[in-house]
């Protein structure tokens, strides 16, 4: 199978869907001739023109608001927020409008809207360009939350998100854009709400999304002689395929959840809640979360690195958990 980059997989997904459905349009900053800051929209402006690739002023509330109004009246917008950190300037439109209006109208209006954004530390851009905010959206009823880790998932999940009739927040990772992976030709989808076992194992379940899947797989590889690690990527946090996670924990008896966001109040805690509720008797040791330190992300490289789980931290933590009891 051919190998393409995550960024190109996203580009293909959007292009294919735009060809399929004339009601899809793109809205966001610098998405015209530049093709978006990271190139996800490369050449789409040339192909589809400014009608369907709508470059905006720096007005995030209006970007999401325009998408909301357009979605309510029959279009299928894909709105880009350049960095997830900037979504803070549009939260009302995301949370009170996009997520709620279909419900509040008693189903009178629909909201087929995708908000594409990217997040994560690791690029020395400091605290206002490095947050991982998925937990906020997981806690917001009415939104679906998607976090692809591979080019294959990126393409298949983005197509599913675009076809979904609910608002979806589609969160990419800056450090994944240029990673390659195999992506078959032709028409296929990855459904929302289906976790994938990225690597089978028997001693411990490691749950990770986005960039952390790669760190988890690296750690699993390093540990492979001593510990058999199962790596599960939920791929979508809402809807969540908790069954696959539970099944894995029932097999391994141990679970570690990884994320870059601060541990406190992060999605790891939500996994712990569900796992302890549903598989308490299968647990050989307490479920653990390895995530970010409880601090804004610092600029300086060694400090930044210290703030988010590194492969060696994961290796260490897995060993610690497996040794317990």
């Amino acid at each position, binding site marked *: 199978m051919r190998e393409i980059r995550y960024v190109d997989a996203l580009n293909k997904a959007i292009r294919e869907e735009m060809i399929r459905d004339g009601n899809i*349009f793109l809205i966001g900053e610098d998405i015209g001739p530049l093709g978006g800051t990271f190139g996800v929209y490369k050449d789409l402006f040339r192909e589809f023109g400014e009608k369907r690739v709508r470059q905006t002023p720096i007005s995030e509330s209006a970007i999401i*608001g325009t998408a909301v109004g357009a979605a*309510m009246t029959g279009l299928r917008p894909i709105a880009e927020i350049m960095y997830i950190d900037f979504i803070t300037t549009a939260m009302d439109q995301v949370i009170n409008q996009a997520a709620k209006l279909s419900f509040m*109208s008693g189903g009178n209006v629909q909201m087929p809207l995708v908000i594409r954004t990217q997040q994560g530390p690791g690029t020395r851009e400091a605290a206002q360009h490095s947050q991982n905010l998925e937990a906020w959206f997981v806690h917001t009823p009415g939104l679906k939350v998607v976090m692809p880790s591979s080019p294959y998932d990126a393409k298949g999940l983005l197509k599913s998100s675009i076809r979904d009739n609910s608002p979806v927040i589609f969160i990419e990772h800056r450090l994944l854009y240029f990673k390659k992976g195999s992506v078959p030709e032709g028409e296929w989808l990855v459904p929302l709400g289906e976790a994938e076992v990225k690597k089978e194992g028997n001693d411990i379940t490691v749950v990770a999304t986005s960039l952390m899947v790669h760190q988890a797989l690296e750690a699993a590889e390093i540990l492979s002689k001593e510990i058999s690690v199962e790596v599960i990527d939920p791929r979508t946090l809402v809807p969540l395929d908790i069954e696959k996670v539970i099944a894995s924990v029932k097999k391994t008896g141990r679970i570690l959840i990884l994320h870059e966001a601060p541990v406190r109040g992060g999605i790891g805690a939500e996994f712990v809640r569900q796992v302890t509720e549903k598989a308490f008797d299968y647990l050989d040791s307490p479920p653990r979360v390895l995530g970010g330190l409880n601090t804004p992300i610092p600029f300086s490289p060694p400090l930044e690195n210290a703030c988010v789980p590194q492969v060696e931290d994961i290796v260490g933590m897995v060993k610690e958990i497996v040794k317990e009891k």
Partner: protein
Amino acid sequence: MDINRERLIGMLKTMYKIRLFEERAKKLYKAGMMAGNFLGALHSYIGQEAIAVGACSCLKKDDYVVSTHRGHGHAIAKGGDIKRILAELQGKETGYSRGRGGSMHLFDLKIGLLGGNGIVGAGLPIAIGAAFSSQYKKTSQVTVCFFGDGAATQGTFHESLNIASLWKLPVVFICENNLYAVTTPASETIATPNVGERASAYGIPGKVIDGNDVLLVSATVEEAVKRTRTGKGPTLIECRTYRWDPHCFVITETRPKEEIEEWKAKDPIPRFERKLVEEKIINQEEIERMKSEVIKEMDAAEKFAQESPLPSVETFKEEVCAK
């Protein structure tokens, strides 16, 4: 008057409908018969009827209206069914939003009603989106976006007017300046004497008009609608007006009594009525007939709402769990 007789009479009737609806709603609210009356998310439109009616009289059924927290008048003027509005206010399953939304959230896509909003200023970007849709699909639909003086100081006002102008979107912004946001006077919140004149900052036409003159409102909006239907972009119209009731029914009245009385004397309904009588478009008898029709409609709506079932908790829980 270059508006036809039927439309004029329709306008008067709609003004009565709004007035009497709001009076009925207030009565029911005070009798403890509204779902929302613990803290009173009930915002009366009395005093401002000329704006919703004047503006919506220029619109077609499939044109869009984006409303506010004070939205009963907009819904009625756009052709909303008062039975379903009242049912919504009582949290009934037969309400426009199946009891999920309540007074501030009346939706009816069939008549282009894109909802009120509980967040001041949130409607403006949504209106841009609706207008963008029509432009994209090359329909000739127009979006009318209502908002208050209070909303004019939200950032969304700026972002939305700027984009609407840049993209020449088919939208008419109508600022209902009733001189107060809750208890805060507009003079303390808007750095210029008018909102309408801010239009120049976006390179679009701006008007400041008497919002209690329904004919002036309709003529001004008519012109703006024509302009924008033919691709010439948005207009900002500020309608000066006044609400008779406190912000909502749990907020203490802080405005001077004399000011309230002064404005009550400018009641837009008798003013329009006198004009129609003078011009022999309607006579007293017809007016009385009209009023009693509206009252009958109101009684029927009250009965309908009262007899309608509350939403089923079981069904609701199933719906939620299915998600």
